[in-house]
């Protein structure tokens, strides 16, 4: 099955669904607002996440920002590359800069997230 189109949260995370596993990252807008990302703290594999709860931290040179779980589920993978190359979050936020993969408990949570047009409208509004 091909990955679905990306969905977004108001907290500037993105989600892409492949079967019942969602890949989660921060948006290009978020990465740009943060500036150079220098540290990413991600949850351990097996941890269960509640939607809207913090699951990690991303730090730029100047700022510390929490990461919020866009969906509920179990962490099945965390992007180990970010430990050595946190700048991937800036350079390739929708690709190599992904953060975690989550096995969903409720797939309908994804449908309720913002689509591309709605998220773009949100970031334009500032």
């Amino acid at each position, binding site marked *: 099955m091909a990955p679905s189109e990306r969905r977004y949260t108001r907290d500037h995370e993105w989600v892409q669904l492949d079967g019942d596993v969602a890949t989660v990252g921060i948006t290009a807008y978020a990465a740009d607002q943060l*500036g*150079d990302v220098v*540290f990413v703290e991600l949850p351990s594999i097996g941890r269960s996440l509640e939607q809207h709860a913090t699951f990690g931290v991303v730090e730029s*040179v*100047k700022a*510390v920002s929490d990461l919020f779980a866009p969906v509920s589920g179990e962490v099945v993978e965390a992007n180990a590359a970010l430990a050595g190359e946190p700048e991937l979050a800036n350079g390739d936020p929708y690709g190599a800069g992904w953060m975690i993969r989550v096995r969903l408990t409720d797939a309908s949570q994804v449908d309720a997230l913002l689509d591309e047009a709605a998220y773009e409208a949100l970031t334009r509004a500032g």
Partner: protein
Amino acid sequence: MTDQDAQPLRETALVDLHESLHARLIGFGGWLMPVQYTGILQEHQAVRERAGLFDLSHMGELFVDGPDAGDALASALVSDPRALAIGRAQYSMICAEDGGIIDDLIVYRLAEDRFLVVANASNASVVSDALADRLAGWNAVLDDRSMVTSLVAIQGPVAASILQPLTSVDLSGLRYYAIGEGTVAGVAALVARTGYTGEDGFEVFVDWDRATGIWSALSAAGADAGLIPCGLGARDTLRLEAGMPLYGNELDRATNPFEAGLGRVVKLDKPGTFVGRDALMRIASRGPARRLVGLVVTGRGIARHGYVVRDEEGPTGIITSGTHSPTLGRPIAMAFVHPKHAEPGTILAVDVRDQPVAAEVTQLPFYRRAR
């Protein structure tokens, strides 16, 4: 670093230029200032390896003139500006009667009886008022030119080679912490070999509306050499690597020069008395209750301003500044700790999101340029 004053933010003469360069502008010290243009890491690296251009027009420029100018400043500040040769500068502080730091300053001697005192933006009016008070009774006049003086800094190893063709001041004869009068890009300017980055570099003081011409001339002259505009974000990481304190982080009214490691600046035995002398004498004789140290974080995490520092028994201090060091590629910080922990090599922990992360006390500065 942002402040939330209800007052409208002041704008420097360069604000339109910053906007045309797509700078991100923030409130800092009551001013709308560029925090970054292309990115803090890139700007930081430019200053370490080539050169960066800064708008520092938010700083306060206070001129003190008159036959008593040297004596008056010696009584108002903790250092002794009378010891300066004409054309030289010194780092200084203005303290309250209790020894607390009102601001840290650079004092330049422009002539026998003429000095320039440069204050931090957030303290400029407080310092101006305090100096006006302290100059009363002396034959010296304070001229606060903060709002009519622009300050543009060019910092980095190739700064001199970019600036020299544009200025009448002989830079090869201008030593570190010296100042000369001349022209830059045809405009009357004071050119000082000072900065806040740990690199060679210059600070150029000009009349307010001349800043755009100076900025454009330097930008054009330096483009091929890799000069790029730099914001306050890079200025902060650069000064932290260089172990330089920032007022509001390491220094404030509740901090005295000795605990901040700046005791050498305080001239307790200079002729005449000065504001804060009695309190500073007592502090000097009994020793500081806490010490400012450098920390290299060896565990995973970045220590930030306000984070708690602890030893095996409990809290022992607080982080004043902390960031990821672009040059060292690891987190660095400054902290106030109990004096018993000030020895380099001491292992402490920093609470990062409720988790203790190991950190080692280290000699300041974190970075020293090759000379």
